[in-house]
């Protein structure tokens, strides 16, 4: 029996599509991410020296190292990896569905909605409802509003973007009002949250995002093949039995669930969901959703951004969301100029 090319054969009946370039890229990304993780744990004044790291991770840590690992940087790192992966996966699903390289849950108002939800909770029900729940509710509400106001669901990217702008404008105005109305200290905390931050995360945060990730990942893997077909256009997809309508709805639901999970643990971190799938696609030079690689890229990007947020010698420590916003904005600009030169947008 000849082995099918481009597939990884598991046992006698299963074959997972896996091309060699994807496998190599995946391994390279994984290696880079492990290096970034090691750097996150060992750099800086409180870092665990690289030589002690294996011992500390296998349970031989004591005193300062244990505190850094279990309380300070360990949970933050685990939340960072999970959130980055969730955002990367969410973006890959969303961009494939909208067939638009610039579509992402945060471009169409999810982030601003989450910020407004958090602000509403902070202003109206201080202490009664946890801020992340407010963020979650706001994000869902914003997406629902965008969905309803386009009139055609998520199919028309132009409408989606304009509707997203409208919803974002309202959400941002509300955030600004709250930041204006509360005292300065509260306003600073809220502004940091609204930008997305990974500082002071606990193991509960880590558990939340990883549960969301592990629950959604199998569904995402299950629809990945059909999603690839849906990319060829509705008619072709329907002929091949991919049920484009249902696949699309499922993908959007998964995408929003992942983004909302990320928002709940880290606040609205911008641009990871937008850039990770683009980078993954360019690394493999292929078509298709590249869900796994997008998730890996997202995790790597966020861990790197958070490493910068922790270690750059700035007079103040900034929330990681500001780094992703600035760098993601620059990347989006590069993407626009490139597509303009190719004349494809």
């Amino acid at each position, binding site marked *: 029996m000849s082995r099918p090319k481009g597939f990884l054969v598991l046992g006698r009946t299963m074959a997972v599509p896996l091309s060699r370039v994807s496998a190599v890229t995946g391994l390279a990304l994984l290696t880079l991410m492990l290096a970034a993780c090691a750097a996150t744990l060992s750099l800086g004044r409180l870092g665990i020296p690289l030589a002690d790291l294996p011992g500390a991770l296998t349970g031989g840590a004591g005193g300062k190292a244990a505190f850094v690992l279990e309380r300070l940087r360990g949970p933050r790192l685990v939340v960072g990896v999970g959130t980055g992966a969730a955002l990367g996966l969410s973006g890959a699903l969303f961009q494939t569905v909208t067939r638009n390289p610039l579509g992402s849950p945060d471009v169409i108002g999810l982030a601003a909605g989450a910020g407004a939800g958090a602000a509403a909770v902070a202003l109206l029900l201080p202490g009664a409802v946890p801020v992340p729940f407010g963020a979650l509710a706001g994000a869902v509400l914003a997406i629902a509003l965008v969905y309803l*106001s386009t009139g055609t669901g998520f199919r028309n990217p132009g409408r989606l973007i304009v509707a997203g702008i409208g919803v974002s*404008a309202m959400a941002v105005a509300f955030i600004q009002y709250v930041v*204006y109305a509360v005292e300065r200290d509260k306003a600073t905390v809220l502004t940091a949250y609204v930008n997305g931050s990974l500082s002071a995360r606990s193991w509960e945060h880590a558990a939340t995002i990883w549960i969301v990730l592990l629950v959604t990942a199998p569904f995402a893997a299950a629809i990945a093949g059909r999603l690839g077909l849906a990319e060829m256009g509705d008619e072709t997809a329907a002929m091949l039995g991919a049920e484009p309508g249902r696949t699309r709805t499922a993908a959007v639901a998964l995408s929003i669930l992942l983004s909302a999970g990320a928002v709940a643990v880290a606040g609205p971190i911008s641009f990871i969901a937008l850039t990770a799938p683009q980078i993954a696609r360019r690394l493999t030079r292929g078509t298709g959703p590249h869900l796994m690689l997008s998730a890996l890229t997202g995790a790597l990007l966020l861990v790197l951004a958070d490493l910068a947020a922790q270690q750059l010698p700035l007079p103040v420590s900034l929330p990681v969301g500001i780094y992703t916003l*600035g760098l993601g904005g620059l990347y989006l600009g590069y993407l626009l100029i490139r597509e303009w030169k190719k004349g494809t947008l």
Partner: protein
Amino acid sequence: MTVTVVRTVPGDAGAPRARASRLVWFLIVALAVLALAMLASITFGSLPTSVGDAVDVLRGTADESTTAVVQSRYPRTALGLLAGLGLAVAGTIMQGVTRNPLADPGLLGITAGASAGVVSATAFLGVSGQWNTVWWALPGALLAGVLVHVIGSAGSGAGLARLVLAGAVVTAVLTAYVQAVTLGMPKVFDSYRYWVVGALGGRDFDVLLSVLPAAGLGLLMALLLAPALNTLALGDETASALGASPGLTRALGLVAATLLSAAATAAVGPIAFIGLAVPHIVKAVVGAEVRAQVVFSAILGPALLLLADVAGRVVLRPQELMVGIVTAFIGAPALLVAVRRMRSGT
């Protein structure tokens, strides 16, 4: 919008006199609305006064305390006039220049540029006070506006989505910068959060005077450019054939629009949707002629902004809702309704 143009122009072409007299009537109505808005603006506030009080003060027959209360609302009303004019005329010119119905100072990065300018000046140059920061909002806004225009609409056929995305890019990068600076410096953050919300209150005549030259220059340029912009609406090739130079007109139009919206933003902070909505209302009323559009925008913009400001003073009494928030919550639903009517494929 094109629908309106097609409907209006042929019907009026045969009867220019009827069109002119209709425009005069519209002008009278618009001015009456503006006068009412101004009267409302000096009447309503946290201290109760009636329309009769306001009229008495204007005639000089009111008692001293009522006069003081009503006159304290003069700077606010004057700022509303200037900001509304600046934003609405800027929106009209921008929509004409880019042929893009979504062009608006907020969407095209100008607001973020002004914010970045204000924050930089406060943080690094020790500039303080409303009078001085104005001069830093202007260059910031100008730079951002040019950048968005270059990324978003250079080359052929300025796509609607791309210009908006270019605005989003520039806004994202500048916002990251502004957030980084303000979160690092509590003092800067404190003054910035009051500026960024967009309000007419709490500012005095000095602020108005300092942006008046920029706004005046912008309005003058807008009026002078109007005929050239009419030609531009026929398409670049036709415009060139008629002896106009589309590139120059477009560049000057962008400068005029940026001067106007930067003056408004510098004076009262970012205010959303006036620049987007007023030009659409005006086009529906007066048709495609740009000079008439500019004149009507200059009247209806302030009227709408002052009415929004009055609404903000009334809804949460005795507290106030800043006008920037009121316009966002009126304007965004209007945009969402407009989305449903967009042709697919744009």
